[in-house]
């Protein structure tokens, strides 16, 4: 990757244009009353078309994507994004979201078939496709839980239980939904402590948010008992689908007793993450919540249809024949890396994992931190794993390979991770200042936050 240091504003030259529009147009300075017309100049760049194309091509070359290389970012499921998914979208671009149903038969079929497919994979009854991302799905799911309790006049249920290992979005979504968060602790083995849970349950509990497998990549095998306990107290179970990938084709959340869940189509269903969206976070519910499914209006029209289309293309390619291998192969890859590196990196919980697992830094760290390891990986052409999450371990390195990576890729990653462990013993200073081969080195984040410069001026 080469360093390119321009902003599009810096390419601007008065008089240049990059657009091609028909002749004509009203004289707005005469037509618009002065008291509602813009007074200030519009500070946009003036550049030609080729300037724009080269500028953004240069920017793209400072970026690393799944198509560039291995992206073992834990809890993000950075699997390969098939190209046929992209190809199907443009032919639907011209459809206005408020067109009558009789003019959108093809679109309607996508929603119907996706509803059925996701229900089959998860054991839920029906889905709403309005949520635009995972956290948006969480929020919607919690709204549905509240709607259910309110419909029964059960107004005291204002608390939600969240494990200490949960994704940060869980408590944040609960807060946006007006729920009070009650934290349930994990045991030493990384699983929810059922004994800690029991006294929390009562008539004020709306439900529990569970991630299963959890953020340590461990299957919560007490889930049956947890589901019974929560249901007995009148609460509902929410399933955070961010970690659904290892269960796809293996276990259905609905069968485990979950009442509401979201899926991240941009994780489990192969749609590209786009540098931070667009995603799609459809929410599925069990029978008793179906009547409320359309109540929360959480986005403008019909959710991110373009993303839903891509996920549907993936499901059609996968089919019932291959779906059973997706989760299993993802789990295979994670366990293979874990077993291949546990003599160099601290493995706090040595049991079988699912799609991801967590190391707690180097076994012999020699002062080298998880951040140093992550930055050094960039030098070797790999994206870094998720680091310093979950919070249960101070030097957490969370690795998720997904099922779309070959044995050769996993072996190459393992070799580099071992090499970094050796470098830590020999030359820790070099690791503290890594990366060395990237367009920029480590940034000064403190100044960025203390004296924020957030726009071109």
């Amino acid at each position, binding site marked *: 990757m080469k360093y390119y240091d321009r902003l599009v504003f810096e390419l601007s030259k008065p008089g240049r244009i990059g657009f091609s529009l028909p002749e004509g147009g009203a004289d*707005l300075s005469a037509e618009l009353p002065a008291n509602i017309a813009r007074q200030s100049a519009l*500070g946009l760049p003036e550049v030609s078309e080729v300037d724009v194309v080269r500028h953004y091509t240069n920017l793209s070359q*400072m970026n690393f*994507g799944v198509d560039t290389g291995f992206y073992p970012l834990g809890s993000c499921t950075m699997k390969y994004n098939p190209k046929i998914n992209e190809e199907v979208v443009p032919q639907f671009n011209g459809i206005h979201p408020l067109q009558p149903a009789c003019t959108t038969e093809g679109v309607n079929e996508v929603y119907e078939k996706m509803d059925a497919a996701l229900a*089959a994979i998860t054991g839920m009854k029906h889905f709403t496709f309005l949520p635009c991302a995972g956290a948006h799905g969480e929020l919607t799911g919690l709204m549905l839980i509240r709607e259910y309790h309110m419909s029964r006049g059960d107004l005291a249920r204002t608390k939600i239980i969240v494990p200490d290992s949960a994704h940060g979005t869980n408590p944040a979504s609960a807060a946006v939904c007006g729920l009070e968060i009650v934290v349930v602790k994990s045991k030493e083995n990384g699983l929810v402590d059922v004994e800690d849970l029991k006294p929390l349950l009562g008539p004020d509990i709306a439900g529990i948010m569970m991630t299963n497998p959890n953020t340590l990549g461990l299957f919560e095998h007490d889930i049956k008992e947890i589901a019974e306990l929560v249901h007995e107290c009148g609460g509902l179970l929410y399933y955070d689908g961010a970690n659904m990938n290892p269960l796809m084709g293996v276990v259905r959340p609905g069968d485990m007793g979950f009442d509401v869940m979201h899926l991240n189509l941009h994780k489990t269903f192969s749609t590209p993450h786009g*540098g931070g969206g667009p995603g799609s976070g459809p929410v599925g519910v069990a029978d008793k919540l179906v009547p409320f499914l359309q109540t*929360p209006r959480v986005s403008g029209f019909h959710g991110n249809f*373009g993303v839903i289309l891509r996920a549907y293309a993936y499901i059609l390619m996968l089919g019932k024949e291959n779906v059973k291998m*997706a989760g299993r192969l993802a789990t295979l890859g994670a366990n293979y890396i874990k077993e291949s590196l546990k003599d160099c990196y601290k493995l706090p919980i040595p049991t079988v994992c699912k799609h991801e697992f967590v190391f707690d830094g180097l076994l012999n760290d020699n002062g080298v931190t998880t951040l140093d390891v992550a930055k050094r990986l960039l030098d070797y052409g790999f994206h870094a794993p998720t680091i310093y999450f979950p919070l249960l371990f101070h030097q957490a390195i969370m690795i998720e390979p997904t099922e779309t990576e070959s044995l050769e890729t996993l072996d190459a990653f393992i070799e580099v991770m071992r090499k970094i462990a050796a470098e830590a013993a020999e030359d820790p200073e070099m690791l503290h200042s890594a990366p060395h081969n990237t367009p920029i080195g480590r940034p000064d984040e403190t100044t960025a936050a203390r004296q924020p410069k957030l726009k071109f001026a």
Partner: protein
Amino acid sequence: MGKFCYFPQTEEDIRVMLKRIGVASLDDLYSDVPADFMYKGEYDLPSAMSEQQVREYFEGLASRNPKLKCFVGQGAYDHYVPSVIPYITSRSEFLTAYTPYQCEISQGTLRYIFEWQSMICALTGLDVANASMYDGPTAAAEAMRMCVASTRKRNSVIVAASLLPIVLDNIRTYAKYAGINVVVSESIAEDVAEGVLDLAGVIVPSINRYGVVENHDGLAELVHSMGALLVEYCDPSALAVLKTPAEWGADIAVGDSQSLGIPMCYGGPYVGFMACTQALMRKLPGRIVGQSTDASGKRCFVLTLQAREQHIRREKATSNICSNESLMALWCTVYLSLMGPEGMRKVNALSYENAHYLYSELLKTGKFEEVFPDQTFLKEFVLQPLCDVEKLQKALLDAGYFAALQTEEGWVTFCATEKHSREEIDALVNIVKEI
């Protein structure tokens, strides 16, 4: 196991990996799952298709949505999409990247977000913008939450009844569960002046659901005198020619950037924007990119002010938003780069001309009456129909036009953009004449 093009493992690879792990079969990796949870049935899914079958299937689906000429807005606008944009946004270095957590290999994403923030500030006139929201309606709901969080012990918001229905729906939904008191107002200035005791914010549209450009003269002063914040919901495309939220004195601006060159695509993906004054910077939801330098002094860009966000603050975060609509923000950034100040003005001038031509030609048919004769509109307007609306809509649809969507009041809405030609508009009007 059959072979599948997205799974690179051979049978031999699987054997090697299982051996290293020390288990005999793939299902042994699920020994921690209670046996009765292992799904033993066949999944009720279609059989795997070949790529060609998938392509043909979607072509078939697409052909079942008749291609219509679109003359409706209401939050999704049929503006022209320059050919450059999809070529840039489909570059896989942008498309297949995650959120730019590792800034050393994400300078592409971080730089375009910084440019996006700068352009949103240019359009709105405000000081700070975030990396994006899901869409306009959710951005409005987040702005409501921001008002409540930024004012002390205040929990009421007055929202204009003239906001788009989809915006009101989202505001009501978010407010309901958060316990925020929403007052939907027909006459904002009066209701604000009347003095809602714990007023946190006021949300008004720049262009309302009837297409009318609203005049907010004096509103900001009034709202501020009540100790509350003013939020303006805007069409960012129109801000190129309309008085900006900053010029009206608003504290927060939100809206949907779909009008900046994003295809309608049945409602998404779009991208919401949010901008605010410097004073509210640390209350913004979502990601923000800032400029910095690396150890050797090179200019670089990083995610900053992260102490507001869910992965750090959990339930105390300003919002739960995590993934946003980054690639769609790139879409708009490329659009605005191509258009520049002159192109943005021209898009508005052409849309204005077409919409006003359509408006006067429709009135000439004698089938409509004016609803807001003395008000200014840009590209969207409503008329009172004097004919049977169902018949009108059906005749238009049969001729390949999506137009004359009915409002709650029984009026019909139309919208024209720079994409429409005189011939298209004349043909539409001729259909109306014949009803």
